[in-house]
């Protein structure tokens, strides 16, 4: 099935999260409000707007079983939203609950734990707040993971055992922490990451191979493997019991988001505007191709094959020569087609998430990005990559 493309807005989609049955999606359009959309024909229409934050929302997560939404924002706050009947009208509305994060910088990323009794908020305050519910006061309280984080935390991911947490940070490292909260968690059984796990135990610390910020982290479905993507255009897969780390260098621009599709597959995307597929096992990992078959992508579908810097150079040369000799400006007018990328997403993809899971394997993923569109991809439709330089080519 070809990718389903929904152009949601002209502004970037900062984050997106679907509900359990995929009938609704919560997004933020680079503003302090989150919107809940549902499909109407081939369009998505706004059902409800969640406004409580003062500054731009950075991340959204929707818990599938308890049907609660958590939002994190640059205003250093997070809110948990729950559907409750309005005391006056009886109408069902989304009501926010306060979270006591105690951070002094922006919240950057948020994810519910698998059991949905905790969530983790990454922040620019060199800390991760692990939040659990305090019945007495009817709010969420946080316990902070601080050591040895040296810079902004950019992403987190929960281990399926509800205790371990992976975090990627701008201090060029990916780490695995214990986020064990005595009041909430049962004693976890030993994993490949360790057996004794009091709060803030560091179970693993891995550097990006060529010094890039770690943008994305993810545990495999079993939790026994960790993958992280960093700003040096590499993706690394860690087998802690090995101990083996496989680094894949990309010829393309850096990846900023990733999701596992099975124990042997990862879909990741970022500044190159198209999702890449990686496959492998304990014996080794490699790039398997892309989900964005550029021949079918884009509006006019005239895919442009392997490009070279030489072509780019002559393109730029022609632009300036036209401007000089003929007074033609390629901005606006005829030049508009020149700025269309051959990929489906027309700008950086900022989020890749699993959409459809069949027999434990992710068969569809959803992506959203700076171009304001939301795309659903079939993870089995992998095509080879043509052109080593990636999608940074203009048509």
């Amino acid at each position, binding site marked *: 099935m070809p990718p389903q493309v929904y152009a949601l807005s002209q502004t970037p989609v900062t984050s997106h999260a679907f509900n359990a049955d995929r009938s609704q999606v919560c997004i933020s359009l680079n503003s302090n409000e989150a919107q809940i959309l549902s499909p109407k024909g081939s369009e998505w229409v706004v059902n409800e707007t969640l406004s409580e934050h003062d500054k731009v929302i950075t991340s959204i997560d929707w818990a599938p079983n308890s049907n609660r939404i958590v939002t994190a924002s640059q205003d250093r706050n997070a809110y948990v939203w729950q559907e409750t009947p309005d005391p006056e009208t009886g109408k069902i509305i989304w009501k926010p609950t306060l979270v006591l994060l105690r951070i002094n910088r922006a919240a950057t990323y948020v994810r519910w734990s698998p059991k949905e009794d905790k969530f983790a908020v990454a922040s620019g305050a060199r800390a991760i707040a692990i939040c659990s519910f305090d019945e007495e006061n009817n709010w969420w309280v946080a316990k902070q993971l601080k050591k040895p984080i040296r810079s902004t935390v950019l992403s987190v991911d929960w281990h399926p055992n509800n205790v371990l947490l992976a975090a990627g940070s701008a201090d060029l490292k990916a780490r695995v922490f214990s986020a064990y909260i005595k009041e909430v968690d049962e004693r976890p059984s030993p994993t490949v990451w360790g057996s004794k796990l009091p709060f803030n135990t560091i179970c693993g610390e891995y550097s990006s191979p060529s010094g890039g910020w770690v943008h994305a982290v993810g545990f495999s479905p079993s939790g026994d493997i960790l993958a992280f993507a960093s700003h040096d*255009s590499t993706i690394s897969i860690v087998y802690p019991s090995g101990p083996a780390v496989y680094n894949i260098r990309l010829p393309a621009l850096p990846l900023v988001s990733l999701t596992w599709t099975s124990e042997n597959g990862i879909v990741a995307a970022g500044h190159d505007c198209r999702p890449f597929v990686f496959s492998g096992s304990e014996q080794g990992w490699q790039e398997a191709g892309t989900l964005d078959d550029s021949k079918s992508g884009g509006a006019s579908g005239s895919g442009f094959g392997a490009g070279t*810097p030489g072509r780019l150079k002559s393109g730029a040369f022609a632009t300036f020569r036209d401007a000089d000799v003929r007074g033609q400006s390629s901005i606006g007018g005829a030049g508009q087609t020149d700025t269309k990328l051959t990929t489906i997403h027309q700008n950086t993809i900022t989020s890749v998430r699993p959409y459809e899971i069949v027999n434990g394997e992710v068969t569809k993923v959803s992506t959203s990005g700076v171009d304001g569109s939301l795309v659903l991809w079939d993870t089995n439709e992998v095509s080879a990559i043509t052109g080593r330089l990636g999608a940074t080519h203009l048509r």
Partner: protein
Amino acid sequence: MDVNFRKIDIDQFDEDVLHESELYEADPRDPSEVLEEAKQRQAAVRTSLARSDIAGALSIVLENAPYGLNVEEAKNLTLQTLLSILNSTKSTEITGVIKSLSPDAQDTLMKYLYKGMGLPGWGDISGSVLLGWHEKLTEVAGVGCIVRTMTDRRIV
């Protein structure tokens, strides 16, 4: 508007400031050892060049290239050695040579190309030679190689 406040070093007021040295693992070798190695490599490169084995010479000079602090002399020597190889390669051979390099060596080569472009007029740097290599290297290793040059703190 007064913009001088932008030049205040605010890090000095931060007790928990992140230092440059924490960003990468320092070279375990002693600076004098690194310099000695660079000299040996220069000799080995000359031998390879005499046999007109460009690919061999490049792999020698790009392996364990000096990085970090206190090894300026070794860095300069390595850059000089590298330039002698780049300048003596025929432009038709470049692509083949680059393809024979390991991905590590390709990344290191890109670092040196940028270093060279940052030092116009130094030694026998020729801008057109560096740009020629840059174009060919980008074709083989992709823009990812340039990204790694920008992010890597192990500066050559």
